[in-house]
């Protein structure tokens, strides 16, 4: 085919220039692919954190209002740690203080206020909801002080989830894999059994069939599970009904849940489901998965900003520069070939045929640029994977008004959970298709710039360049 032969020969003749243009495009495309891959990696890291927190199938999470002490200070009866004249003290707000030296205080708290369990069924019946499960998230805090009376508290504790044993496919436990023993079955609803995170089990010498005391009540460990630690998942799982009966420091969650995990029937329906739940539960905090991503803070967020803002603009700038260079070089090449095009016009070639030839050459350079750019993109993604340090993700951060310094801590206040997440950029098929489209578009843009010149070329003028 003459078109291909001519195209191939011409590119071979201008090999260096063709390579330069293709490499310029490749650089821009490579950057776009790398940035897109990094963005995908960051999104994946965020999603990893979130799935560990809220489970794999959860589209919307409903929590009761965060328990916040009033601005004036913690409510009466709540335990406080104070720094008295003779050392640390355990105090009851509005009550008396006793020395904390050599003592340990343990309290179980709910971070969110409760919602009636009947609301779970109401949410499940909403239009667009595929499934809903209630849960309870509790935090056990232990504070110990040395006998010396020094104000150097040793903090300990664990997080605990009450799981609806009839709906284990929703919630944090759904993201876990059983390492030994087994997970809950529906019949465990009222049993004093626990499933334990493998890390917690290892640090506390627990295994399947071990005995475990939670809030003064004995449980039997039935399974050990492995979980992605990215989202600081719960240490212990017990049946929801049993969790509801646990004595808490403040109030009770009897017949209540403090979290509802919801799966929407379709991704498109999530906003509508979110609105419906908000209207059903006006006081509750309704968060969709995309909004949850915004709750993750730390360097993972900085990485996301870096990829999405700086990276995107850098890629756009390099791409524009590559397109501009390709246009200029193509116009220069056309200028050098004016006599050739004039000859072709004299032979009876129509302008559009000559333009097609030049566009074909440019498109071929674009395709070469796309191939090299995708390769560079993969290399960039691999380099990021290899050299990028783990990014930190901070989740569940709740500020506690009134707890302004180390002098005063609310026992059971929400700890800021910061975890390290690996950044694994991934190049998707969609990004590759985008890269090819961009590169070919860049090539065609350059070809169009040259073609514009050809179209304006009068054959006699073109031939006079050599005459």
């Amino acid at each position, binding site marked *: 085919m*003459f078109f291909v*032969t*001519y195209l191939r*020969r*011409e590119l*071979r*003749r201008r090999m260096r220039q063709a390579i330069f243009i293709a490499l310029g495009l490749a650089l821009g495309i490579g950057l776009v692919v790398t940035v897109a891959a990094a963005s995908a990696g960051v999104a994946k890291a965020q999603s990893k954190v979130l799935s560990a927190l809220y489970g794999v199938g959860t589209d919307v999470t409903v929590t009761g209002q965060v328990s916040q002490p009033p601005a004036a200070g913690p409510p009466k009866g709540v335990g406080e740690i104070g720094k008295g004249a003779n050392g640390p003290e355990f105090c009851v707000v509005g009550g008396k203080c006793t020395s904390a030296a050599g003592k340990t205080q343990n309290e179980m708290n709910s971070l969110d206020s409760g919602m009636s369990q009947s609301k779970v069924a109401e949410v499940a019946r909403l239009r667009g909801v595929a499934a809903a499960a209630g849960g309870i998230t509790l935090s056990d805090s232990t504070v110990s002080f040395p006998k010396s009376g020094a104000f150097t508290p040793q903090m300990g504790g664990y997080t605990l989830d009450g799981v609806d044993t009839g709906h284990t496919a929703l919630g944090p436990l759904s993201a876990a894999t059983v390492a030994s023993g087994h997970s809950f079955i529906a019949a465990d609803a009222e049993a004093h059994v626990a499933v334990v995170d493998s890390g917690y089990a290892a640090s506390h010498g627990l295994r399947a069939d071990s005995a475990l005391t939670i809030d003064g009540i004995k449980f039997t460990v039935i399974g050990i599970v492995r979980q992605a630690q990215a989202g600081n998942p719960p240490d212990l799982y017990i049946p929801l009904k049993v969790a509801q009966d646990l004595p808490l420091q403040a109030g009770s969650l009897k017949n209540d849940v403090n979290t509802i995990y919801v799966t929407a029937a379709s991704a498109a329906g999530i906003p509508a489901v979110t609105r419906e739940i908000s209207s059903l539960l006006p006081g509750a905090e309704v968060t969709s998965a995309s909004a949850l991503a915004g709750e993750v803070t730390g360097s993972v967020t900085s990485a996301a900003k870096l990829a999405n803002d700086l990276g995107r603009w850098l890629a756009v700038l390099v791409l524009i520069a590559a397109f501009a260079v390709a246009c200029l070089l193509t116009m220069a090449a056309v200028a050098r070939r004016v*006599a*050739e095009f*004039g*000859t*072709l*016009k*004299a*032979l*009876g*070639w*129509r*302008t559009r*045929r000559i333009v097609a030839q030049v566009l074909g050459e440019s498109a071929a350079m674009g395709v070469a640029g796309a191939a090299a750019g995708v390769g560079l993109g993969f290399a960039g993604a691999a380099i990021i994977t290899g050299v990028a340090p783990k990014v930190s993700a901070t989740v569940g951060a709740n500020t506690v008004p009134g707890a302004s310094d180390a002098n005063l801590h609310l026992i059971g206040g929400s700890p800021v959970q910061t975890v390290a997440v690996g950044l694994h950029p991934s190049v998707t098929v969609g990004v590759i298709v985008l890269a090819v489209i961009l590169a070919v578009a860049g090539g065609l843009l350059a070809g169009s710039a040259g073609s514009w010149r050809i179209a304006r070329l*009068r*054959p*006699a003028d073109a*031939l*006079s360049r*050599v*005459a």
Partner: protein
Amino acid sequence: MYKLTGVTKLYQKGRRTVPAVRDLDLVIEDGEWLAVQGRTGHGKSTLLNLLGGLDRPTEGTIELDGTGLGALRDAQLTRLRAQKIGFIFQTFNLIPTLSATENVEAALIPLAIGHSARCRRVAAALESVGLADRAGHLPTELSGGQQQRAAIARALVKEPRVLLADEPTGNLDEDTRDDIIGLLEHLWRERGLTLVLITHDTSIARRAQRVGVMNDGRLQVISPR
């Protein structure tokens, strides 16, 4: 047959208007060989461009076989060139990346002739100019004379009615010049072509049926037959 009536071509050079061809009346019969001489810059190439439809006259009309070239649209002129007019240039104007065969084939592309027919006609054209054994060579691998032969084959492969040659031997040595002019004369006679040939060489001009001299944009036919 060409019929030129009151043809003038003006160029704008800055603020100056330069007449390249002035008030030219000329008839070139079918199968005639007209040689045009004249000093550089006196309008010879402009005349050839006007005859080939590569340029349009500022005033006057140019008819080829009764068709006014000035009235044709660009696309129609392009088609006319593709079908009826062959060009030969002083600098050969072969496409450097294409072989002799492919250069000749390039002239058939606008005619949308099938591949096998193209191959047959290209081979015959190269054979007719004695270049069959150099068919696969690039222009840089051919001598000046061979390159001009390839250019002649390219001009003739589409079997045009008119052959317009702009100093076809200007870049050749004396022996090669005689070969090329001998070849052109042979093809002109054999195919009954209308040949308009621009040359500085009086010995070549003498072989034509008529010789015209361009002087300051005016053509004076000095040896009518």
